[in-house]
């Protein structure tokens, strides 16, 4: 009787509508991801520079003095680390602010592991210095312990957030701890720069490549919400 009641929710051309819906879903989820998850490119890139440049400066200085790196080299090194820490904290706090729940709580608990670990790091180095450790021993322990803390934190973070790549980096950084110790002075700094900083650099490059692929192919939605897989 009434010819106008045959309108469907999908309109006259459901196919067009479906494509547009898919585009909206992908775009919204990409925006959510960008706005909520830390950017691996920025973080790994920052730490690649801090370790790569910082430890190279220590290595060059230690080679020149024939013993421990000089004061200026350490000042530059600590300035680089402090900058990297500041960038990391500001970026992560900005990205993760405004959410709450089990995942946000787990992230916060994990995040506080860093200041806990590195406060004790300072105490341990102070303690072995007081006990009469030589500059060479302090230098080796400082490098190895930093790698062990960073590596184990990555393993924990990877398990917590289901990040397989981060797990791989954690294993690598822990291996660097062993290699940097056996390398001895002053080569330990070169190992930290090349293998440690290099590890971060590889991760940064991988993240850049993955981001480029996401832009090309659209965001892979979570398995339960994937709508793009059959569309290509």
């Amino acid at each position: 009787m009434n010819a106008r009641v045959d309108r469907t929710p999908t309109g006259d051309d459901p196919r067009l509508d479906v494509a547009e819906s898919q585009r909206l879903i992908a775009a919204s989820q990409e925006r959510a991801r960008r706005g909520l998850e830390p950017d691996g490119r920025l973080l790994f890139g920052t730490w690649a520079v801090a370790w790569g440049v910082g430890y190279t400066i220590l290595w060059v200085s230690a080679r020149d003095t024939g013993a421990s790196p000089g004061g200026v080299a350490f000042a530059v090194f600590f300035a680089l680390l402090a900058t990297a820490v500041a960038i990391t904290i500001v970026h992560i706090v900005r990205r993760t602010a405004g959410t709450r729940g089990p995942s946000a709580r787990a992230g916060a608990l994990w995040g506080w592991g860093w200041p806990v670990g590195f406060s004790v790091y300072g105490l341990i180095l102070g303690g072995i210095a007081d006990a009469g450790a030589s500059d060479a021993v302090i230098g080796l322990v400082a490098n190895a312990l930093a790698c062990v803390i960073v590596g184990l934190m990555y393993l924990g973070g990877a398990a917590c957030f289901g990040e397989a790549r981060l797990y791989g980096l954690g294993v690598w950084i822990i291996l660097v701890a062993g290699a940097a110790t056996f390398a001895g002075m002053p080569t330990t700094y070169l190992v930290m720069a090349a293998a440690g900083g290099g590890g971060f650099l590889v991760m940064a490059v991988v993240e850049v490549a993955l981001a480029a692929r996401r832009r090309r192919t659209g965001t892979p939605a979570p398995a339960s919400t994937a709508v793009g897989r059959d569309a290509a």
Partner: protein
Amino acid sequence: MSDLDPVIHAPARLRVVAALAALPPDEEITFPKLQKLLDMTAGNLSTHVRRLEDAGYVRVTKTHAGRRPATYLTLTTAGRRAFEDYTTTLNDLLRGAGA
């Protein structure tokens, strides 16, 4: 062919639901953060959130962060399921249309 859920099948609400579905289950997001993520006006977002809340798809929790009021949003289990059904239907439509 099943119809697309009309509560979700509107551009603004689809964007809201898709963004909320990107959060882990039980994770809540503040109203201003979601507004910033989606680049929507507060009035527009609250209109659509109310519709989704009425449908039982979104849970709105008003609380206080210190002295400031804070509004948290999350997809309910029904909302997450409705979004999954929606995307499944989209896929079915695509397969049908592409055949």
